[in-house]
């Protein structure tokens, strides 16, 4: 799959199963319709998706990266209205960066270094001009055969 294909937001996958994935971030959270969110089976979002997102039948919340605070994790867990699983997946290097949950004995320099590294990484990634929309991941798609 070419990255440019993904960025178009056009459906391009074929499979026997149908999945809908919505990507929610600070750039589109205000404009994304409730219907789109409700129709999606998998929502991928930044921390803005962890608050105020009211979706039914959420049984699994996956946090990727070290949450900024323990209260934030609790807030994210609230996306599961009833029973469910909360999985927190943290890359090792996140544990050395700032935030309530990171090592308290790390120096400020390390925090700054990590912040700078993260900013550079995000900046270069954004240069790809990614603009996501709700899209069908499977079904109705271009035939790869």
């Amino acid at each position, binding site marked *: 799959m070419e990255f440019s294909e*993904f960025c178009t937001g056009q459906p391009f*996958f074929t499979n026997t199963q149908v999945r809908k994935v919505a990507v929610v971030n600070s750039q589109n959270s205000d404009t994304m319709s409730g219907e789109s969110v409700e129709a999606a*089976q*998998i929502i991928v979002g930044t921390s803005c998706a962890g608050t105020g997102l009211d979706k039914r039948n959420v049984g699994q*919340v*996956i946090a990727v990266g070290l949450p900024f605070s323990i209260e934030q994790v609790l807030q994210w867990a609230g996306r599961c209205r009833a029973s469910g699983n909360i999985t927190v*997946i943290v*890359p090792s290097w996140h544990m050395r960066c700032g935030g309530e949950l990171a090592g308290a004995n790390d120096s400020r320099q390390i925090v700054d270094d990590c912040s700078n590294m993260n900013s550079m*990484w995000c900046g270069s990634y954004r240069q790809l001009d990614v603009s996501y929309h709700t899209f069908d991941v499977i079904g109705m798609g271009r035939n790869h055969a």
Partner: protein
Amino acid sequence: MKFSEQAVTGVTHAANLIAFETCQIDHLNMYREGLEWEFFETRSDDDAVDQAATLAAAKASDVNVIIITTSIALCDKVALKVASKYSG
């Protein structure tokens, strides 16, 4: 692999993981009835992304899944990986 099962290298990491998994969560009563918590540490961002996408794909047949990332870059990577799970 679970935090508690991983051979964590470094005293600081181990202390962080223990605090994260037990003390702070217990302190704030984060164990809500019906919710199960899992904690994983991965070697890299890419490993975390792959693990999240794999888990989401496995669970999505039964329940709706929300993946929350701590940066836009991670969000983009996870979205791509989730999509690739279904690209056939």
